[in-house]
């Protein structure tokens, strides 16, 4: 593999922009959002995927073409719809493995796991991207190396800043925190930032944690991954405990907006870019 360079990254971005023109031959479908974002970023011919309404709100990028058929819920995909979309190949993850037997009736199924106990999702996402691209005859280098390049560039901006506590509010009194084995944790390490959460997690995120716990981390920067439940905004404005927190009083709370918490390389870039943007602003 050649050393990534700015030129290669630009070439990769250009390739992404030209995506619709390079009609890949295999029609592919997937049940998993991490795979969907990877396939879209690779420029694959995606014919069907799950929960597109919510994907557009939470994962946001890459944009999903209107031609992709919505298969409904990830936990209960519409096999009839998938059958009629006539894919040549289906990608599936360990999360939805219970659907594999049904999927195999429609097309061959390729499986990858990004989030497993004790696993490192970034390296797994790189391997998955390379594997999917090879299977489809596409070039994985722009995405893999472009992501590495992007993180390396952002690292120069933010490395050595305060430790970051990546959290996601569930309700006004609870959040889940993302540990070292989450995609966010891995990205923080690559940005040269410490993850303030050093305790164990279960499958990358540790829920639910009472908001009092934030008092244990007075010096950190709190990175809030969206979307927030509606009553949280109200709480953030009013609750005496939240208002008294040193991180809040010093303005060290970064509201990052929605990011897919169980994503692949495109989500990693989105997290890094939004976080670096907020650090630059703070």
């Amino acid at each position, binding site marked *: 593999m050649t050393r990534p360079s700015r030129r290669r990254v630009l070439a990769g971005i250009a390739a992404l922009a030209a995506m619709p023109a390079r009609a890949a031959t295999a029609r592919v479908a997937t049940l998993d959002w991490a795979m969907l974002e990877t396939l879209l970023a690779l420029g694959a011919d995606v014919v069907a995927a799950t929960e597109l309404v919510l994907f557009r709100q939470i994962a946001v990028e890459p944009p999903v073409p209107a031609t992709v058929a919505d298969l409904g819920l990830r936990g209960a995909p*519409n096999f009839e719809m998938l059958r009629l979309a006539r894919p040549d190949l289906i990608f599936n993850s360990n999360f939805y493995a219970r659907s594999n037997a049904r999927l195999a009736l429609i097309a061959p199924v390729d499986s990858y796991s990004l989030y497993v106990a004790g696993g490192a999702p970034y390296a797994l996402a790189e391997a998955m991207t390379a594997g999917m691209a090879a299977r489809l005859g596409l070039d994985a280098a722009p995405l893999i190396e472009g992501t590495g390049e992007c993180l390396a560039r952002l690292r120069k901006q933010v490395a050595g800043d305060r430790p970051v506590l990546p959290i996601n509010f569930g309700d006004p009194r609870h959040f889940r925190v993302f540990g070292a084995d989450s995609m966010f944790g891995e990205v923080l390490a690559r940005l040269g930032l410490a993850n303030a959460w050093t305790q164990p997690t*279960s499958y990358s995120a540790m829920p639910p944690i009472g908001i009092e716990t934030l008092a244990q981390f007075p010096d950190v920067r709190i990175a809030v991954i969206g979307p927030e439940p509606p009553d949280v905004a109200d709480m953030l404005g009013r609750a005496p405990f939240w208002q008294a927190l040193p991180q809040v009083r010093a303005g060290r709370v970064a509201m990052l907006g929605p990011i897919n918490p169980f994503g692949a390389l495109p989500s990693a870039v989105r997290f890094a870019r939004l976080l670096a943007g907020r650090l630059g602003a703070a």
Partner: protein
Amino acid sequence: MTARAPLVFGGGIVAALALLAAVVAFRPPVPGDAALAMVLDRILFWQSLLPRAAVALLAGAALGLAGALLQRILRNPIADPSTLGIAAGAQLTLTLATAFAPGLVALSREGVALAGGLAAVAIVLALSWRRGLDPVTVILSGMMLSLVASALSVTVVLAKGDYVMSLFIWGAGALDQQGWGPAVTLALHLAAGGIAAGLMLRPLALLGLGDAAARGLGLAVQTFRLLALLVAVWLAAAVTAEVGIIAFVGLAAPAFARFCGARRPDAVLALSPLAGALILSLTDSTIRLSSGGFGDIAPTGAATALLGGPVLLWLLRGVHGGRRQPADATVAGRRLASPGRAIALLASVAALLLLGGLVAGRDAGGWHVATGGLFLDLLPFRAPRLIVAAAAGAMLAAAGTLLQRMTGNPMASPEVMGISAGGGVGLAAVLSLAGFPDPPTMIAGMAIGALATLGIVLAIGARSGFGPERLLLSGVALGAFGMSVLTTVLAGGGMRGYMLLAWLSGSTNDAGPVEAWTGAIAAAVLIAPLPFLGRWLDLLPLGDAIGAGLGLSVRRARLVLAIVAALLTAIASLLVGPLSLVGLVAPHLARLTGFVRGRDQLAAAVVIGASLLILADWFSRVVIFPYQVPLGLFASLVGGPYLIWLLNRGGNRHG
């Protein structure tokens, strides 16, 4: 009141205070700069720790009072806010508002939940009004509403993906506080509710004499019941609104009071709030102490059921048979002239539904009737799920018929017996141990969980010769225990929670040939021998004495029927999840249609159960295509209204 009460309650109060003191003494230190740590610690102490202790006491007391009132006026020892649908109704409106009208939740989370609780009870009352608020009808309507509301909540949660964490924590009753608002609200509710209950002491004593006697003494029975019911609901809805569903306290507190020797209504009413406050406070302190840091190992509301379930099971040993609930109920007094022909008619309807399910559907372009190539294309996906639905419906209906016949209790159903929930616990255990297990492992785990639950229920039931109350009550306790384990795992979120949620919602979507054959063979093997047990089914509802007098070995008959019912339930809920209403509804529909003899009712219930789930499966496929709604939801939406209509058609028997 016996000498036991002061001793037990005195001990309870001391223990609760000691644990609270320990919580304060061992609260985790705030790290960092000393001055800042002191400020934060003070805020935590005044704005979080103290209000939380107060909320535990107040919510427990309110639930205890609500439970005591409900059990008294409904004259049913297992009535509580959850069996009336109050908690589930509140949860549903909150879920709906979170998903579709977030502004309302931001405006008043409490108001939204309260509206749901009140709406639920209004529906339950309206449904049972024509039956003179007959206790059994009230509970039946409440339980059906609960199931429908839970199914709808799960559907919305599934459709909305990432908001689930919030809903589960709220649903599980987390007591964390950030201020005094909820404590003050609960205190006001409790004070008002307590005063109202105090004024009702005399009428409540009269109600214990029975409707006719009470009316003779000049008490407007309906008006009074309505009033007492409203007070109880208002209390329970307030608790649900402030801290979520706290399982079990409303059920356990009055039972605990009676165990301590309280017999007269004023004693039970006075002691139940105290018992409820102690139960919830002790549970919450235990959770805090065993969690160590700031986070909790489990939401307190789930923990009350974890701790309360075994406690109630233990309490049951001391409960003597008590008044036998007459197997009142719901028979419309109609009898079919030729049940055989009617069953054949029902069967042909079922066959037509099956055919319709195979050919009718939707695609990206609209509706279609699949023939030729399209039919063959879609057959591998449609046939297995329809067969699974039909088989599961038949098995659940058979299980429900057996349970209702053997207990003489119209509320009995696989859901109430806790067997489905036990299967869910088995699934949760497998998911926790193996991470991402393969399907056979998951099925094995669920079967073990269901059979273990059956074993416990039977072991407890055996001590009372399988007396109806004991069996039902232990089933309810175990079911609550199982559901609280599931809620805790769900609150843990992640993919494990998501997989459990998918099973809970009751989807036939993943059914393949293996599931179809499993369902078909199990249904055939387990249901086919049942007609030979027709005599047992006819004699058992008449009561132990009559059964034994007619030469029936009541104990053995109950044991055999219980095992068959549990097996039927275990396999059916492996296939379609635990939320189905079929086990409750189908036997009722059969009986209300006029199938009176045990064998006829069983056959009709099996056919009706299969038809209901076939219909539900088809609806779940097409209603919000391409998204799919859980089967359990449509089972309750199809069966519930029909049952309600039939219940009401019976007219006002009391008036």
